[in-house]
């Protein structure tokens, strides 16, 4: 009972540490070299490593605008990743269908409205549909496949994906639709902020998205931390058999988790749909959640949020300042590149638990 707190080992530089030191030294060298005029403007090293930062300092308003845009898409990535994390934690399933759930939820909402259902009622009904979906998944997919290897459950979520695509097209048609943002009282237009010698323009819908996402995440965190069901959810995430032994019903927890992920998907779908339109093409964006998960760790909710923001901002800054050097269009793969670099240094993610295998 005496030493319950493990003492931290003394600081020592690991291989990763040395790599970071080397990187820092290289950056310092570059800065010195460019300031002292050793590397002239136009020199390839300057174009690649120094000039983009010069641009950032020269036009701070553009930098702020870029970061803001990055944060906004980051919030949406974070929301999709959050859906993944919830399901992964509670049922150990990597839910490939999360992206399609976003589209399906948004499509249900818009489709119902097209059929003449008032917007707010359609919203309630869409939540109801996500609940039915959660019950269906639990009853017809998870329950029969319980205790099967993870890969089989993973494959099953591919099945769910195609069922949802088919169902969505059958009921609501496959053509892209307009999000009913006005009917849902979502703001339109932009706010122009005068700052740093220029203008930064913030879309009101983006501000709304950030506020709603923050509120939802806070509510979820509170729910997980302080309620009986939240405690049961965390318990199931840690150990299925121990959870069963204290009388937690896995089936009930799975329904709750898939329903929660469904609601998160609906909110994501509304926000994303309001910025572009509602179509199945949206689901490919959901794949961006993968690098977010690698960054944040598959089991960490704060990780999903921070990871989403890092990917969002990193992507936009990369595209804006470094994209032109290679002819642009790096936004689509930069996220995966960042994730790959991350895997080399911190495979467990920012907030994931360090993986220690006992052998």
């Amino acid at each position, binding site marked *: *009972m005496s030493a*319950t*707190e*493990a003492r931290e080992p003394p600081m020592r530089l690991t291989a990763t540490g040395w790599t970071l030191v080397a990187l820092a030294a290289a950056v310092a060298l570059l800065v010195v070299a460019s300031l002292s005029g050793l590397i002239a403007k136009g020199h390839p090293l300057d174009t690649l490593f120094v000039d983009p930062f010069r641009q950032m300092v020269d036009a701070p308003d553009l930098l702020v605008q870029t970061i803001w845009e990055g944060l906004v898409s980051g919030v949406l990535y974070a929301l999709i990743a959050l859906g993944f994390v919830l399901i992964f934690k509670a049922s150990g399933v990597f839910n490939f269908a999360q992206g399609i759930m976003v589209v399906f939820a948004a499509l249900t909402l818009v489709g119902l409205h097209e059929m003449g259902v008032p917007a707010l009622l359609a919203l309630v009904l869409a939540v109801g549909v996500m609940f039915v979906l959660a019950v269906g998944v639990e009853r017809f997919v998870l329950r029969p496949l319980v205790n099967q290897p993870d890969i089989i459950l993973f494959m099953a979520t591919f099945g769910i994906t195609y069922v949802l695509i088919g169902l969505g097209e059958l009921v609501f048609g496959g053509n892209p639709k307009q999000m009913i943002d006005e009917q849902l009282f979502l703001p339109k237009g932009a706010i122009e902020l005068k700052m740093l010698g220029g203008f930064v323009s913030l879309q009101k819908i983006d501000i709304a998205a950030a506020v709603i996402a923050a509120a939802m995440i806070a509510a979820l965190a*509170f*729910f997980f931390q*302080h*309620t*009986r*069901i939240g*405690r*049961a959810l*965390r*318990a199931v*995430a*840690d*150990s299925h*058999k*121990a*959870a*069963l*032994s*204290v*009388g*937690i*019903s*896995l089936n009930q927890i799975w329904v709750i988790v898939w329903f929660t992920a469904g609601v998160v998907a609906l909110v994501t779908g509304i926000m994303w749909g309001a910025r572009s339109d509602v179509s199945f093409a949206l689901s490919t964006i959901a794949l961006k959640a993968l690098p977010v998960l690698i960054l944040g760790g598959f089991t960490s909710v704060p990780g999903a949020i921070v990871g989403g923001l890092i990917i969002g901002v990193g992507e936009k800054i990369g595209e804006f300042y470094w994209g032109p050097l290679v002819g642009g269009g790096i936004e689509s793969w930069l996220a995966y590149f960042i994730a790959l670099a991350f895997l080399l240094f911190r495979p467990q993610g920012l907030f994931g*638990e360090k993986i220690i295998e006992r052998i």
Partner: protein
Amino acid sequence: MRAPGGDTRLAPGDVLLSVEGVSLSFGGVKAITDVSFDIRKGEIRAIIGPNGAGKTSMLNVINGFYHPQQGRITFKGATRQKMRPSVAAAQGIARTFQNVALFKGMSTLDNIMAGRTLKMRSPFFWQLFRHGPALTEEIAHRKVVEEIIDFLEIQAIRKTPVGKLPYGLQKRVELGRALAMQPDLLLLDEPMAGMNLEEKEDMSRFILDVNNQYGTTIALIEHDMGVVMDLSDRVVVLEYGRKIADGAPDEVKRNKQVIDAYLGVPH
């Protein structure tokens, strides 16, 4: 703390659980073959046997993890053949595991609170806001949990994530979580495995105290024969999935078949 097991119909000494003719197999492997025994209210019942004798499978059958192909189990007078673990837990069966199964990311307190899951009844709506009935309920349960923490002398690790605790303490937390369910029947799967002498003595004391103070019926699997003989009122011995002896520790110790099972038969 209220005495665990609010079941007043059974007097000490009555049969709390009876296992009749249970057989369990996995494909072609027979884990348990036609085993019958009973557990009386208030006793400490040991299940022993060499490795692979089917002891853990037996516990898994009792708490609903495994469903036997044949046989019946009667608990508190109700007979069943198949039961889900959450239902078994709701009826008053708690257990610990051979290789500690805790919620590693959660604190000691939260782990033991999780044992109160089934006792919490406040409506979902109030829980969402942690207000009104939900708050009152949480406080009441917290009180019970704090008493268990005192009882097991783990006050100092209340807020520590259990994954960081040494093995002996993890076993104690696991016992705490099972106690929080205030069970009628407590199943302990090798509660002292991997412990040093001092930890074993502590654990033995806790098991006896639980049994004496709260009258909780306990069924335990244990390999340390000294511990088994000291703690238990009656012992059932399994070998290769069959029951080979059943009785008081002293009887069992002298049983020819049991000695052969443990020491081997000369050829």
